[in-house]
Structure formats: C-alpha cells, structure tokens
C-alpha cells in the first residue's frame, strides 16, 4: 500500500497543444507580412514553417525528457512572442528594402540567434539538473557579472553604439554582456541573500513605524546602488541600471521580508535619478521627451514617431505589413512595441502585454511553490527581470515613463538578448520541474515488510 501523495500532473500534452498553437501564430504572422507588403505569401513560408515546427517539437521533446514536471505554459508563450518578433523584424526589413535595396536584412540574424537561444535553453535544462547546485557558485556568478559589466568599458573590445557603451565587439560579432550579467547577477543576489537574510532581517531599528535596517547592513544595498549608478554614468545605460538596482532591492525585500528595504531603495533610487537628471544632459533630454515631446520635434523624432505609429494603428491596427513602422527609427528593436501597436493595433499590443503578464505570473508562481529559499529568490528575480524590462521599455515607448534603453524580451532584434532570455526561461523551467516533481518516494511498502532477520553466525 502506498501513501496517497499529491502528484502534480505533468501536463506535457497541454504544452504540446499550446506549442503547436504558438508556432502557428508565428507562421501566420510571417505569411500575413508577405501578403501585406508584397501581396503574396512568402515562397519560403512552408520551408520556414516546417523548420519552426521541427525546432518547436524538438524543444518540446527536450522538456519532456529532462524536465517532465516543468510548467507547461511558459514555453508556448515564449515561442509565440519569438515568432511574432521574427515576423515583425522581417516586415521592417521588407519595408527598408523597398526604399533601399542594399538594406541588410536583420531577420536572418535574428532567426539564427533564436536557434542559439533555443540551444541555450536546452543546454540549461540538460546541464543544470538541479538549480540548487548554482547556489554553490554564488560568488563565481557574482564575479562573472562584474567582469561582464566591465568588459564594454575596456578599450579595444568595448564599442560605443548609439551613445551607450554596452557592447563588446569580436570580429564581426557584437555582444551585449549586460544581458548575460543579468542572469549572473540574479543568481548571485539569490545566493548571497539566502545566506545573509537572517542577519539582514533581524537587526534593525523601528523609526516612524518603518523597520529600518542597521547602518552596516546598508552596505550591500549601497553597493548595488553604486553599481547601478556606475553603469549609468560610464555606459550611459539608464535601463540596465534601473533593472539591476530594482532586482537587488526587491530580492532583498523578499529575502528579509522587511519593507524597510523598499523604502531605503526607493529613496536612494529617487535621489540617484534626480542627481543624474541634474548632472547629465542626456537624462534631461529623455525627461523632456517624456513630458513634452512636441516641444522639440527634431530631437524627439523617435518618440514622436512611435506615438504616431501607435495612434495610426488605433484599435484594430493597420494589419501586418500595411502600416509604416519603418518611419520610426529602430522600429525593429527598441521601438518594436510601437511597430506592433501600429500593425496589430491596440488589441494586438494588449495581447502581447498579456502574454508577458502571463510569463511573469508563471515565474512568480514557480517562486511561490518552490520549496527552497534559493530557488524562490532566483525564480522571483528572473520573473521580475522580465517584468521590469517590459515595463521600462514599453512604458518608455508609450510615454508612460521616460524612455530608457532596454530590449523587449523575445521580440526585439538583438542576439544577446534573445539568447539570454531563452536561458532565463530554461532556468525557470528547471526550478519549476524541481518544484512540481513529486518527492522521491520513501517506499512505504518497505516498512510493511517483516523485519529482516539477520543471521549473525
């Protein structure tokens, strides 16, 4: 007789069904781009679609094999986004090629990087059989994060693109180490805070009803603040500094369950933001573009055209391939949300945001159900990093908040981003598999067997 144990259903069949649906969205989007721009379904739709189906099924099989209990919804959500992004980048390529036949298509590269991303996803699942092992490498990841963040500042390999020094170039390849640093930092923060959480949580003073941490415990948070400010200053990367700082403060709050950290973090962030507003011209430009973009139409051309695109899309959108997303500079990367809003309309953009919302929600659910503190923190951190990225970049494009550079996960053109975000999904699925997997059966029938008589002769 076995003890009745709640065993989560694997739900791999549901995942398969959703994956097929997600792949279909991507292929349909690709076909409608061809219809919208050139009037015919692209000739390679079947080839490309076939390849996508093969890759998606392979990915699904990997999950089935190495993480059978993993969350069944995350992978299809990501495939849908990735497919939409590819179709949109392809669409903008076509738009540019109509004007300039020499335009170097970005969609092919993105397709290749998507492949690498899926490989990274599979590798994470295969190599990391238990996420708790990552905790033993806490400081290694911390060190790696710092090295990665410093790389772009090194002369020779660091590259300054569009005013931000966040790239390194190796031959024809360029890479954004900050994207990898994001994961390393999340692992480092989670590992560090698991160890220090008691010290951080227990000592403190109560001032005006708020639990303030002890002065010396402020050290790490100040370090986090300084790190993010450093990035802001030296690399002119507002988005990443916001992401890293937010990640650290929120994980600190989760680990210690002390809202005081949020207050301290919030104050430091506000102070840092205000000081950088005073000190840096490029921050003032961004804030002005947010408050009153039409006061300087030349300088705020991109923001204004993003808004024009969104307005042009209206409720139902112009239809894929039938708007003018090419008019917005970088409508394939930073401003891909505006391009989607133009061609898929308010409805389509809301659907995309809901997909992101679901991804974040699944991530947080994994954190909630995870049994170990490290896994909880890591899952929450990874989910939060996606939430912050989406909020910062979509909010920036739609003028909810000032524009800061961050990539739109899975949608925007960019190799490092797509690979690293796939890796994040790999990690989340790994934690989720661990979480939902039934505990190894302590076989009940063993105890039912008669006690063995051991002969002592």
């Amino acid at each position: 007789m076995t003890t009745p144990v709640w065993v989560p259903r694997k739900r791999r069949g549901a995942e398969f069904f959703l994956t097929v649906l997600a792949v279909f969205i991507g292929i349909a989007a690709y076909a409608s781009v061809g219809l919208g721009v050139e009037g015919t379904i692209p000739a390679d739709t079947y080839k490309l679609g076939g390849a996508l189906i093969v890759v998606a099924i392979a990915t699904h099989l990997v999950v089935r094999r190495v993480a059978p209990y993993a969350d069944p919804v995350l992978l299809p959500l990501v495939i849908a986004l990735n497919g939409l992004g590819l179709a949109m980048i392809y669409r903008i390529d076509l738009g540019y090629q109509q004007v300039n036949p020499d335009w170097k298509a970005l969609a092919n590269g993105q397709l290749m990087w998507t492949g690498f991303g899926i490989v990274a996803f599979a590798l994470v699942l295969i190599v990391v059989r238990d996420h708790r092992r990552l905790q033993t490498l806490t400081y290694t990841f911390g060190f790696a994060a710092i090295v990665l963040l410093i790389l772009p500042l090194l002369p020779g390999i660091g590259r300054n693109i569009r005013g931000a020094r966040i790239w390194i170039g190796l031959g024809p390849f360029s890479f954004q180490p900050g994207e990898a640093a994001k994961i390393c930092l999340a692992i480092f923060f989670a590992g560090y805070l698991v160890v220090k959480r008691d010290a951080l949580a227990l000592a403190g003073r109560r001032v005006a009803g708020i639990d303030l941490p002890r002065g010396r415990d402020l050290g790490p948070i100040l370090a986090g603040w300084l790190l993010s400010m450093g990035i802001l200053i030296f690399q002119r990367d507002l988005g990443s500094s916001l992401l890293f700082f937010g990640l650290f403060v929120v994980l600190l709050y989760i680990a210690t369950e002390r809202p005081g950290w949020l207050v301290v973090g919030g104050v430091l962030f506000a102070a840092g933001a205000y000081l950088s507003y005073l000190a840096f011209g490029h921050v003032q430009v961004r804030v002005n573009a947010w408050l009153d973009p039409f006061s300087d139409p030349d300088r705020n051309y991109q923001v204004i055209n993003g808004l024009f695109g969104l307005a042009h899309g209206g409720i139902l959108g112009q239809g894929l391939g039938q708007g003018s997303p090419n008019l917005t500079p970088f409508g394939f990367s930073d401003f891909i949300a505006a391009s989607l809003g133009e061609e898929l309309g308010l409805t389509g953009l809301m659907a995309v945001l809901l997909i992101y919302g679901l991804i974040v929600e699944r991530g947080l659910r994994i954190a909630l159900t995870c049994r170990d503190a490290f896994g909880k923190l890591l899952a929450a951190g990874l989910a939060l990093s996606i939430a912050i990225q989406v909020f910062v970049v979509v909010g920036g494009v739609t003028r909810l908040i000032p524009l800061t550079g961050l990539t739109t996960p899975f949608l925007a053109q960019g190799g490092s981003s797509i690979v690293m975000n796939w890796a994040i999904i790999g990690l989340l699925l790994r934690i989720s598999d661990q979480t939902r997997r039934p505990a190894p059966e302590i076989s009940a029938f063993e105890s039912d067997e008669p006690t063995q008589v051991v002969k002592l002769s």
Partner: protein
Amino acid sequence: MNKPIRNLGIACLVMFLALLVNINYVQFVEADSLNAKNGNKRVINEEFSRDRGSILVDGKPIAESVKSKDEYKYQRKYPEGGLYAPITGYFSYVFGRSGLENSENRVLSGSDDRLFVNRVVDLLSNKQPKGGSVEVTIDPLAQKTAADGLEALGKGTKGAVAAINPKTGAILAMVSQPSYNPNSLASHDFAKVQKTWQRLTTDDDQPMLNRTTQQTLPPGSTFKLVTAAAALENGVVDDIDDKVKAGARLSFGGGITYTLPNENGGNCGGDRITFEQALNVSCNVAFGALALKVGQKDLAAQAAKFGFGTDPLSGLPMNPSRFTSADTTLEQPQLAQSGIGQYEVAATPLQMAMVAGAIANDGNVMKPYIVDTVRAPNLRVLDKTQPQRHSEAVSPTTARKLREMMVSTVKVGTATSAQIPGIEVGAKTGTAQSTADRPPYAWFVSYAKDGDDEVAVAVLVESSNTARSEIAGGRLAGPIAKSVMEAVLGK
C-alpha cells in the same frame, strides 16, 4: 518569503495594468489628436495613397487625382494650372494643403462623417476608400475672361478680379495675378517641390496670395459708393438731384492748412453740383464734405453693414476689409479722406464686389460662397449651399437711387468703358493713391442686370506696365469688368 512574493505579484499586476491603460489612452483616446498633428507622415502618406475626390467647375475637374506609378499611388493634378490656384489651393506632401484642398479636405479625402457609410462599405468590400467631390460656383468663362483681361495688361501685372452673383452671393470669378501652378507643389519630386516653394515664398510679387480675398488696399473712389449710401441712409442727402458742395478744394477751417483736392486738381464743375454729378465725375470735394456731414460713426456703421470688418466667406481665407480701427477718432481731414476711400480705409476686391452686389440686390448683402455642391463618391449630393443673407446694407429705395447714380456714371461719367449696349450697367471707378513712390491702384466696381441675370464685379489692378499718367480705374480696370460681365450674362 511567500508574502513578499505575493506583494511582488501585485506590484507586477499594477505595472502591467498601467501599461494597458496607457496604451488604451495613446491608441484610443489620444489617437485622433496625434493623427492630426503636424508632420505626421503616416497620415499624409495615407492621404496620398487614397483616391482623393475632385474639385469641379461646371462638371470639369480643376483638381483631380490620377493613378501614379510611384509609392504614393495617386498624383494630384490641376488641369488648369494657375488659373484656379486661388480657389483650389495646393495639395503638397511637403507643405500640406491650402485653399479648398484644405477646407474641404474631409470630403475630398473621404474621412467626412457624412461618408461614414461609404467607408464601411469600402472596408467590407476590401476597396480603397474614395473621396467625395466638390463643385464650385465659378463660371468658367468668366474666370477665363477675367484672367485674360489681367494678362492683356502685360507681363508683371498684379491684380485681381472678383465676380459674384448679387442675388445669391455665389462667387462667379476669382482671379489673382500673378498666380502659381499648384502642380509644381503637388509633385512627388520633393526636391523640386522644395525649390519651387522656396521661389514662391520669397517672390516679392507674392504669387500665392489670393488677392481677391486676402489683399486689402485702399479702395479709393469706389468707396464713394459707401459714402453715398451713408449720406442717403442718414438723410444728409435726400435725392440724387440734390445739390451738394463741390469745387476745386475742400478746406477745413479751424487753422488747418491742409485742403483736400480733386484728382488731377480740377474743379468738379461748379461750387454746387447735383449728387448724381458728384458721383459721375468722382468729385473728391463733394464726398469729402459728405463724409464730414455724415460723421465718422455713421460712415463706419454703413461700411460695416456692407461687410467691412467681417469675414463672411467660408472655405477660403479672407482678410476683413476695414474702414478704420475701432478706437480711432479721425481728425476732419482724415475723415474726409476716409470718405473717398483713402487714409486707413482698405478693402479686398471681393468686399468691393459685395458693395456693388448689395446695391444691385436692393440693399441686401449676400454671404459670398464658393462651394456649390458636395457629393459622395457615388455622386449622391451630400450638401448644396443655400444662399444666405449676410446683412441689409441699405433700404431698397436707397439702393435704387445708388443704382441710378451708378448707371449714369457709366453713361456719362468716368466709367463709360463698361457700357454694354442694351443692358443696365452701373459702375464706379477708383484710382487710389498709396505712397508717393508707387503708382496708384486702379479699381473698378460694377454690376450688370439683364432681366433676372445679375452680376457684380470688382477689378483691382495693383500695378502694371502702364505709364503712371495713364493709370485710371476706368481705363485700366473698366474693360476687364465689362468683359467679365458680358461673359456671365452671355453677351
């Protein structure tokens, strides 16, 4: 650690809700105002990709869209070139719209609310939306005749002709010289468009100015019609046979050394002449004296009744004509000068046509209009302009007396150049001084009646190659007015 994670979940929910609300705001609430912003290329591109409706004169297009092979699908064409430019305006990718292209844009582009059903049908049948058409009130022969008349004065002539139907206010001719070719601004060769624009906007002759409605210049003696109307309406003169002050100069007394002379310094034909004679010979002394008797207030009120100080024209930009600024108190010599259409008095040719038209129409000023009918793409009439009275300028009796005086001016006075045998023609000439260093403006305002057919015409020749001594309203502008009236009346 679950409570903070739950809180984090709520925070993320709030963040996503904020994004959702915000995109609803941008794409739904704010969308219209963003679409209407200047420099929104998406909307311009869309307009350029649509089959825009035509502007028609007598059924023939003066602005139409033809298929184009480049990326904008349609090319705007103006078959008559500059002849109708003051009316159609231009439709330019780079510089926007003007004229009827601008004021009737919603119909022409098909975005008018009255075309909503058409748009839905087009959407459902997957057809490109089409714009409606606008038929204008212009008489093509009158328009052509007026333009030819100005052109005949030689190269470099600046001037304008406005003709209206006095009974309805319908504009029958609207010619401004020099003009420009709107085709050159509608071109899809944007570099060329830029160059043309640069040339047109820096040209001292202001070819893009619609001189019939935007150019206010001293109307000179043609304003004596207004003074005469005020004199009759206010009982200063009772009848056209009454004797009025005349002579060679009008002096003001009270230590003022300035005296108001007649044109060319002559005598009007005696110290006292009849009111009718005074208008026939355009006697400055007589009308200066009458203006003083009527007084500034009543003279200003009479001008206002004729439409001075208002912009009753819909669809095209019009600068209000003015008698004088409201808070000015005129000195006696200034008031006398105002009475003969000098000093601060300034009027557009259309305003002066309205004065003549009101006199022809028993004292009623009709609201001038240019758009006759507005049609949907399927030719269904969406709107037909109904004539509207703008004001009553003078009583029918006064109007009849003024007509008699104007007719007499054509018969025996300064306006003989406008005689059309067998038809009632009344007119008044004007030769307005401006500054000493430039030639005077030649004006001619007139009306003609042939049974029920009526027309009122104002001609302004701002400058031409004519020798200064030859410039006079009757000689330069009169024949043009006559030919336009003949064109309208079919003579």
